[in-house]
């Protein structure tokens, strides 16, 4: 009898876990999507991948969206110029933040073009940096 009750509870728990937000503190449902930020800078027309330390991202930061990048690039980080390609569940974006002019551009990419943009960027990167 106890086992049957546990099975019913498990079914309810699974249904709830499949619908709950993975962003909750201590969530019982793991992520099934992703949004990634490919950030780089250009020196004399040559791209270079930015590492976490340069943009002051904490070491365990594995996702990025446009609103998060805006917060990252607020007054704390105005000394850095960067380009970025945001790809994933929050949409696909090409972004540019210019530290000299304080100008920033966020351009939405049509679905399907984001991988082409990433391929183009990767082909421009040196094999080793």
């Amino acid at each position: 009898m106890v086992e049957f009750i546990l099975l019913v509870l498990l079914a309810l728990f699974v249904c709830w876990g499949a619908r709950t937000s993975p962003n909750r503190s201590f969530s019982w449902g793991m992520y099934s999507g992703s949004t990634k930020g490919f950030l780089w800078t250009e020196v004399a027309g040559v791209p270079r991948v930015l590492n976490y330390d340069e943009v002051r991202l904490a070491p365990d930061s594995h996702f990025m969206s446009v609103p998060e990048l805006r917060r990252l690039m607020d007054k704390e980080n105005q000394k850095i110029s960067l380009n970025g390609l945001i790809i994933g569940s929050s949409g696909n974006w090409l972004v540019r933040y210019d530290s000299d002019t304080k100008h920033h551009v966020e351009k939405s990419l049509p679905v399907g073009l984001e991988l082409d943009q990433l391929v183009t960027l990767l082909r421009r990167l040196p094999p080793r940096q």
Partner: protein
Amino acid sequence: MIIVATLCLVLASLWRAVSVVADVQRIRRVDAHQRMYRPGLGWTTPHELELRQRAAWAGMGAAIGLVPIVVISASTVAAAAAIFCCGGIIAWLLYERTLHRARYTSVCISILASALLLYYAARLFTQLPAAYLTGMFASFFASQLYLVAGLRKLQSAQFMSGRVIVDNLAYGLYQAAAGNREFIRFASPPQLADLLASKKFLSACRLAALLTAALELTIGLGALGLLPALLVFSLAIPSHLAFIIVSPYRIAPFTVAALGLIAMAMSHPLLTAIL
């Protein structure tokens, strides 16, 4: 199985605690004001980093305290110490979630610690069959973990298109190109470009996504007792090792904790009592 699960808990907790301490120390080394940005959580503060580090040291102490218990688990003192250490790990992870949004890793380690705490408490304070109770407990939560993981992936159009796998692999290789040692550098940027431009690679990732969701659902049903233990392990171990390729440093504690939970679940699965 209890010894295997205890070893998994020790390893997963230690790895997680060491990574927290390493993160805090790196932030302090990179930025004099200890202010670095965490997407979804905002800027770090020196006070918060200090609290996280202290809590992680406590978690590490609790995990190390479990090591001798693996050897002398039969004694009453060992059972009492195990209850204290498992409780310490749970308390650390519950506190950690107030400072840093818990990853699923923390949830999985907490469940494993709770299962072991239940085992040692039942053995010490009751006449109930401790291994049977713990197996049922682990089976319940391991099934939930894998069934939910599989269902969520099936519901996600992005995942089922293979793009989550593509994006994560690309991101890891991109970061590795910048010298990030958390990721394995098995292709250079030009080689990654060739991969991403290949339709075969994208199709392989779509197939991998479908297989991942199917495997997780199968392991979830297996953890209930619907499949033989050997089959469940032969599915779980390779699939978890494959996940590690995406982000070895961060995923390893989850992998170890999940395998420890499955080991406990398969000792007395929930449905064996009914079937």
